[in-house]
């Protein structure tokens, strides 16, 4: 299929993304959306936050605009800016403005990474005002009814300096995500990667082992996403120990001793 471009606000997810509920997060999100409440997703990397957002966008039939926040992301990057086109300045909406206009879901991934001035535009959108101040245009944009603001952050590895402020977090309905329970995770790995149930079970056990190492030299254990990667490699004919090294061990650490230890764990399991 040829690649084709589409404005983010026109991009509706057509096919149902695979998502395995772990609790009542779907009902809570729907209720929050219906009552125009913003949502905060907490949880470690690779545990399904982004997939959940895709699933909810499909379920609610709203376009999903995802912004991966980084330490150089400013309020202008979200709201919009003037650009020079053909010798004239033209205003171009940022992703947040687009979502506010069309009533989409704007998902700010790892929001604590963004610069502090971004909070200035998020706050009025995240309370009952639901307005977006567009300072450079001198306008206030009222959010469409279906607009939903969702942000995510990982409380685990953020430093104190980058913690989410109370004034921000207390505006959101919080959903806590964690790695799924073993049987759910087995199902996810088997469905997503195509490996059989036995292998999925071993992969989940392997993930548990790496998660036991959290705090003993590893910042995070293997995420469900990494297990799916490893599963896909195994399904593609790579032997399990090599797949675990490439898809999991190398992804979670660079420390030689830790790499070797994870390697020993996987070779013990398979």
């Amino acid at each position, binding site marked *: 299929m040829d690649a084709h471009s589409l404005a983010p606000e026109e991009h509706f997810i057509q096919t149902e993304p695979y998502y395995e509920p772990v609790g009542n997060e779907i009902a809570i999100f729907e209720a929050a959306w219906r009552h125009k409440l913003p949502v905060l997703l907490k949880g470690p990397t690779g545990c399904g936050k982004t997939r959940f957002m895709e699933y909810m966008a499909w379920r609610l039939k709203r376009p999903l605009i995802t912004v991966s926040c980084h330490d150089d992301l*400013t309020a*202008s990057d979200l709201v919009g*800016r*003037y*650009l*020079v086109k053909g*010798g004239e*300045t033209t205003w171009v909406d940022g992703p947040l403005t687009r979502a506010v206009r069309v009533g989409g879901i704007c998902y700010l991934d790892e929001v604590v990474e963004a*610069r502090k001035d971004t909070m200035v535009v998020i706050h009025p959108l995240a309370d009952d005002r639901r307005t977006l101040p567009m300072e*450079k245009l001198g306008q206030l944009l009222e959010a469409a009814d279906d607009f939903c603001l969702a942000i995510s952050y990982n409380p685990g590895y953020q*430093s*104190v*300096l980058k913690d989410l402020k109370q004034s921000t977090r207390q505006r959101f309905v919080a959903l806590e995500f964690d790695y799924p329970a*073993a049987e759910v995770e087995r199902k996810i790995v088997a469905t997503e990667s195509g490996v059989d149930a036995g292998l999925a*079970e071993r992969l989940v*056990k392997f993930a*548990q*082992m*790496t998660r*036991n*190492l959290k*705090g*003993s*030299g590893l910042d995070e254990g293997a995420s469900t996403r990494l297990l799916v990667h490893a599963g896909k490699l195994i399904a593609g004919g790579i032997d399990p*120990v090599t797949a675990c090294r490439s898809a999991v061990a190398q992804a979670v650490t660079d420390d030689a*001793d*830790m790499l*070797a*230890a*994870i390697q*020993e*764990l*996987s*070779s*013990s*399991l*398979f």
Partner: protein
Amino acid sequence: MNVTARAEAITLLLESWLEADFSFRKVGPTAEKIAALAQGEQDFVLDWVKRIASSNLEVAWQFARRAPALIGHMDRRLMEAWVVGACDVYDRQGLRHALKVMEEADHFAERQLEMTAGVLFEDVAGVLGNFVRGLSGRKLSLTRLERGHGAYTDTEKLYLPAVLARFSDAKDNFVLAKASVALLWAQTRYGTFRADLAAACANFPDPERALHQLHGLETLRLSAYIGRELPGLHREMQRLQALLHAPEPAAWQPLAVRLGEAEATLEDSLRLLGDAYTLPDWPPRCYQGALQPEAVAAAFAARQDKEKARLRVKLAELLQEHARHETPTSADTPTTPPERQVFDAEARDEEGGLELELTLDSLPIAPPEDVKALLTSIYLDFGEIPPEYLVPAGDGEYDASLLGEQGKDPDAVWQGTYHEEGALFYPEWDMGREHYRKNWCVMREKDVPPIENDFHRQTLEKYAGVVKNLRKSFEAMRDENRIEKRQTQGDDVDIDALVEALADARDGREMSERLFTRLHRADRNIAVAFMVDMSGSTKGWINEAEREALVLLCEALELLGDRYAIYGFSGITRKRCELFRIKTFDEPYSTEVKARISGIRAQDYTRMGFAIRHLTHLLNQVEARTKVLVTLDRKSVV
């Protein structure tokens, strides 16, 4: 140089290093043997004799005597480990024990494997330490056995021999170490010590033999567990056994089948012990190590009350927390009063996974990590969580000695016999030995007694000019938010640049792409640790100069807003190394800190290694892009 001349030169060296004139050591014959070695071997031996002699002449002499015979048969790396091991033993236990380590090498003929293909504890400890922490259960640590070869566990530490050398291939020896670690882990994880093994064996005519047979039964049971949980490792364990051509006696087969069942527990092993006692002696598997019920009992006794007290206090905290968050749904349905709420814990220990569910009044609650670890440890000891452990601590049940929350008074502990209790240990480089002395410095952090006087104000007045200059220079260093013009990307259009670019375009010249303004944000991310010499040699004006310098530095650093800490160091011998807290990273520059700076006084002797190591450790815990450790000592003041 011929051999005779070389031997004479070596004799002179040995005489000088080993102080032969005073000790009457006859170094001549040894020098001849060394002279007969190849040049590289000579250099190796002589270098080590000199290095060991800086610690102890007798150990060096014993090494010199043995080295020429050993060097041809022993891997250099292992020889070095042997020497360093002897020096470590000398440091910790004295000469007599160190000489015993030296003597062990006399049996090199029967331990040739150890000397060529052996795997050193130090080489595998890092990897296998992480390996065992990855497995479920209590967090176990690896420790080197001082003497002997039988790996064992006390249920908290896994003791491995200094060298593992059963096979002629180093890779197989590594697998052996891994298998030993896995079996010892399995002993703690699958309940080998949930009964008093010594008591269980006491009724047999030969209790020692009974324990040996029980060890065999448990090895069979746990190997089957490992086969189910870690099949890859199990295959390797079987391969190692096959390499030794040591098939299990047929008489043990029926027992192996019964203990290989998924539900088999320690009770089954104990039940079968009577049968096993009548069988021929269990041939130990290469990785099975030893059972040490006394060590297990000692560790359990030390752990039991502490864990119970800690869990009960944690549950009381959980209960309080729960009560805070709990809001009654209506006035008609009052919540259960805290004293009547009941905790329960249920373990799901199946398919290798261990999950402990904690409930409060039948409703599941998510315990924090430390409570989970406590529950796991208790479950491993008892196979359940005893109900009396689940009663939250009441008022007056906070025994600080059990909870381990109250640090010992640093001044009081030095006077006691157990002065190393609760202290931190740091290695120290020995220049003569050209090697570290392990756990050499016994260190504690202490507070500087604050002295509230006029010192801070007086210093600022005395150096008013300097302060002004310092502020100026530090202010110049201070980065500020500013708008950068003429950028290729940015938040706003740079109108000046745009007008210029349009004019250029109209003029037929190339139009610049730098048309935007961008906000540059000041983002200093520095942490500085100051290490102040508080040894006796700073007494007098140097101490005063240090304190004044600190006041001025603090004033300047406060302007920049950088995170900084100040610690003083001093000590008497390696056994009493003290680091004085003046300002920690999290503390603001308060009146209390100013009073502590004023209270800095010259103490004892200078010893910097431990202070550098400890402050580096503290700096590493701080998240900052740039980390700086600055020492303020006599030389920097002079």
